[in-house]
């Protein structure tokens, strides 16, 4: 229903106090984001994510030789030569579990958390509108994806700059880029990973509409993230690999070549869009017809 329609419909009954014109409704998104960042839980998760690259940097600083053993994530041993690699290593370490874990908590909590706190019925009676509430909740989760990825990247860059020398960066293709451009590349990687998490957020949102128990929705979302990666690692199932939402999670290597290859970025974005459309539609279908008995 468009805003103009609702305003017209109100006009004939115009005696009521609410006959005033509808506002644009951005207020709810604003409060959603401010509430998200006023929660101690959000800061605890962002803080935990930020600690990961810092720990890696400190560990490598203390025992640089151990990182040259060939074990551990790619370019771990490069950190010592250039601090700018800390952010990249931190992201690689966080992608399989830590990032999906925190995103699962936020996305799984969206609707189920409101239901269990008893606030869902009041938001709907306000009336927030069911589709609008879902949209706002999804956007809130997306903002968290950005914040989560950035906190790893920024903490990694800072820790690297403090503990190691910083200089021109050698890319996977062997080319060398300036410090300034390497910051841009790091942000592109962060963007890639943020986009990677949007499909998972949509899945979490849908699961959250199915239950009034937020912990259940969070756990289910996180389990799915792990299952998707396990399936992706089984060569026998290669037919379904391109359809798994975690398939391109490590595809950001293409952004670290010269010239940049956007293929995996595009495929990833398209795949995540597909998950968003399917699970967004499922969430809408479920939530708009659900009896709110919480």
């Amino acid at each position, binding site marked *: *229903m468009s805003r103009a329609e609702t305003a017209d419909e109100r006009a004939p009954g115009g*005696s009521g106090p609410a006959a005033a014109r*509808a506002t644009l409704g951005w*207020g709810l998104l604003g409060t959603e984001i401010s509430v998200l960042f006023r929660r101690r839980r959000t800061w605890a998760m962002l803080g935990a994510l930020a600690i990961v690259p810092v720990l890696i940097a400190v560990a490598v600083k203390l025992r640089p030789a151990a990182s040259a053993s060939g074990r551990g994530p790619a370019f771990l041993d490069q950190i010592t030569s250039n601090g700018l690699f800390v952010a990249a290593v931190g992201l690689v370490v966080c992608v399989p579990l830590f990032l999906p874990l925190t995103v699962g908590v936020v996305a799984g909590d969206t609707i189920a958390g409101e239901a269990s*706190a008893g*606030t869902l019925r009041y938001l709907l*009676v306000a009336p927030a509108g069911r589709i609008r509430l879902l949209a706002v909740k999804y956007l809130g989760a997306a903002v968290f994806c950005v914040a989560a990825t950035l906190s790893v990247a920024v903490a990694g860059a800072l820790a690297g700059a403090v503990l190691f020398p910083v200089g021109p960066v050698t890319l996977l293709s062997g080319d060398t880029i300036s410090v300034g451009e390497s910051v841009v590349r790091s942000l592109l990687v962060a963007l890639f990973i943020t986009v990677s998490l949007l499909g998972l957020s949509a899945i979490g949102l849908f699961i959250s509409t199915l239950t009034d128990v937020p912990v259940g929705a969070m756990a289910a979302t996180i389990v799915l993230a792990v299952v998707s990666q396990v399936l992706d690692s089984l060569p026998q199932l290669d037919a379904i690999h391109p359809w798994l939402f975690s398939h391109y999670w490590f595809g950001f290597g293409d952004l670290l070549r010269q010239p940049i290859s956007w293929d995996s970025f595009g495929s990833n974005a398209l795949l995540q869009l597909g998950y968003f459309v399917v699970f967004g539609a499922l969430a809408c279908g479920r939530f708009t017809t659900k009896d709110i008995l919480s």
Partner: protein
Amino acid sequence: MTAAAPAPAIETHGLTKRFGRQTVVDAIDLTVPRGSVFGFLGPNGSGKTTTIRMLLGLASASSGTAQLLGHEMPRNVATVLPRVGALVEGPGFAPYLSGAANLSRLDSADLYAPRATHAARVAEALDRVGLSAAASKKVKAYSLGMKQRLGLAGALLTPRDLLVLDEPTNGLDPQGTREVRSLIRSLAAGGTTVFVSSHLLAEIEQICTHAAIMSAGRLVAQGTLDDLRYAGQPRVRLLTPDPAAAARSLARLGLAVDEPPAAGLAPRDVVIEARFDPADDARGESLDIVARLVADGVRVHGYSVERPSLEDRFVALTGEGFDVEG
């Protein structure tokens, strides 16, 4: 909608809710006139809250229709609910936010709430329920009574045409209860229709103009408070040493004597109870019973007309579940 005869604030036809095989609300036809303070009574589990959830579009009806302020629900939720304030099954707030922040969040969900007056309205709503001092405290530090007040404040964020209050005095101390009563009275005086559900009859009896009684999912009575009370028969209670003569006199006046006494004089005063014919109810007060009794030579040592309380009526309609002494 014509200005002359506004649609009832709430009107339902055959409103039914089934969960699986269980019918929780069974074809109720509820009419809440504009401007009334309407008591929605019923024992716990009689379907009051489920009915309220259907009225507010939170739950869908299995069959039947519901209209709020003349508009079909839940189709017109977006346009009708801004004019409706509600407290549904206890307060619900984010514990990690302050009272004021919680209200601001609810206010931002309402598309029709003017942004410009946002802060002022939140402050006013808090003031109205006496929570100004605790506005910046986190809700997790609130007592149950304070949460209940905050819930009421949430219902009062913008001027409303209709307030739907589910058990508004739950958890409040006697002073709080009294404040809520006076709040409801002042809102009603300002033209707001107030729909209050409660299982506390005394509450309803003190503030309501109309009431409906639910029992096991059915609407067993509704109307003005006087209608509901007078539907029970008023009784005459007479204290006299001349029971036989009194019984004869009362019978002549058209009253049904409960237990006709034995003839002859009683050694001391005897209580005689008699019922008016309900159809004669209006005459009840005007019949000059005492004068007739005296004229018939009956010594009257005590006389009263007792009307059944709403509680008597409630128990008569809903049966077991309430422990009432006679």
